[in-house]
């Protein structure tokens, strides 16, 4: 009886926001994702690490199908994600994405960058979108830049705007692909701080990063990838203190040397 209650709890409260089942992905002959399965629950922060070329970005981009897949299933909050069409766009709109290179719309000012998708895709009234956008810009600390265009902002500011742009869609989760790798060192923390806050507020996040301190502090779970496979999946404590595979030990040693 108690057991049944608990199971029900698990099913309703912890149904995954993101579920990948047996994803295979090839670039030509090159097998880049090899039967990847991954589940991300609501409020979870999953940090993906691994050597260059191991498929981290591809995995991240596969979640909202910016990359096509060759087999497997992607399920967003219980709904299977199709390969194309209106349904795909709808599901994508529920998953935010933050890129290494910010990718703000160069011809629009900061405020318009943030309100564009809510107005056009979610059909939010413009006034409401503006109010929310200003709130979000304030939250990430760039409200004074609202009237400028992206090129007038520093990299750190642009990346915080990109986070605000993703948040404006009220996403169920946000994917980050090396969000600080293109930044000057002094700007890395201003972006990581925003991400840390988001995590604390319960945002579901998948983060590809080389920032090991961030991973240690913020991750609920570490995914270690190598050569297209997930080799280890563990809590940060366990992973960093007792990596199980030789590959993970080598990887951790190699970054310690830097």
């Amino acid at each position, binding site marked *: 009886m108690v057991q049944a209650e608990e199971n029900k709890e698990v099913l309703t409260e912890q149904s995954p926001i993101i579920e990948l089942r047996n994803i295979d992905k090839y670039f030509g002959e090159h097998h880049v994702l090899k039967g990847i399965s991954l589940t991300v629950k609501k409020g979870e922060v999953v940090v993906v690490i691994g050597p260059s070329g191991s498929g981290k970005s591809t995995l991240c981009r596969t979640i909202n199908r910016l990359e096509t897949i060759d087999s497997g299933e992607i399920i967003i909050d219980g709904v299977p994600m199709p390969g194309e069409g209106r349904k795909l766009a709808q599901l*994508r709109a529920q998953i935010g994405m933050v890129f290494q*290179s910010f*990718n703000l*719309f*160069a*011809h629009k000012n900061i405020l318009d960058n943030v309100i564009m*998708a809510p107005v056009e*895709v979610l059909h939010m009234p413009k006034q409401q979108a503006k109010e929310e956008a200003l709130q979000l810009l304030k939250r990430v600390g760039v409200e004074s830049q609202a009237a400028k*265009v992206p*090129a007038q902002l520093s990299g750190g500011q642009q990346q915080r705007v990109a986070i605000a742009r993703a948040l404006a869609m009220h996403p169920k989760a946000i994917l980050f692909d090396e969000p600080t790798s293109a930044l000057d060192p002094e700007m890395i923390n201003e972006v990581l701080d925003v991400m840390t806050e988001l995590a604390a507020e319960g945002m579901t996040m998948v983060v590809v990063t080389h920032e090991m301190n961030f991973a240690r502090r913020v991750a609920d779970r570490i995914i270690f990838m190598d050569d297209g496979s997930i080799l280890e999946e563990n809590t940060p404590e366990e992973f960093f203190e007792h990596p199980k595979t030789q590959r993970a030990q080598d990887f951790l040693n190699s970054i310690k040397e830097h």
Partner: protein
Amino acid sequence: MSVQELLAEYGDKYVLALLTTWKLTALAFSAAFVIGIVVTVMRVSPVKPLRVAGDFYVQIFRNIPGAALLIVLVYALPYLNVVLSYFTCVLTATALIPAAFCSEYLMAGMNTIALGQIEAARALGMNFSQMIRLIVIPQALRSSVLPMTNLLVATMLTTALASQVPLNPTDLTGIVAHINTHAVGGVTAFLISAVLYCATAVVIGQIGNLIDRKARILR
């Protein structure tokens, strides 16, 4: 005849001719612009037949002489029971050709858009038409103001085709032919038209520069 004599006798007609040239230029360029955008959207659309049709359009109209197109419109279309007024024929010829170039300039403008912005738009849930309307075309337009300015001038020069058909009032080139059949205007008659063409082109160029400065995308 001297410039003074010509202007005294034909001044009013020159004004009308200038207005005709302006009118043809404005109408033809507006049409070319709209057609150019439509053709460009076709060329980048996910639907293969549309892409092929768009490319085909550009290949045809980029490579056909204006005079040949005008002859087709004036002499061949009536066989298909399509009889257009002379004005419409000139307008059509001077719109269809620049439209092909307009599309080429837009395609070049699109190449300046970072692929990442397209991905960001897709990740935000935008569909193809939203991406085209909100990101691609606006940026392509902003980065092609100067070529478009040149295209506007080229379109104006192409409207001289109007001189090949009977039009009343005629255009800046037609007026020269008109004067030279009624009097001996000689090169001077053409000189006046040339000055008016040049002056218009200079004004267009200045306005183009102004718009370019305002529209240019900071990167």
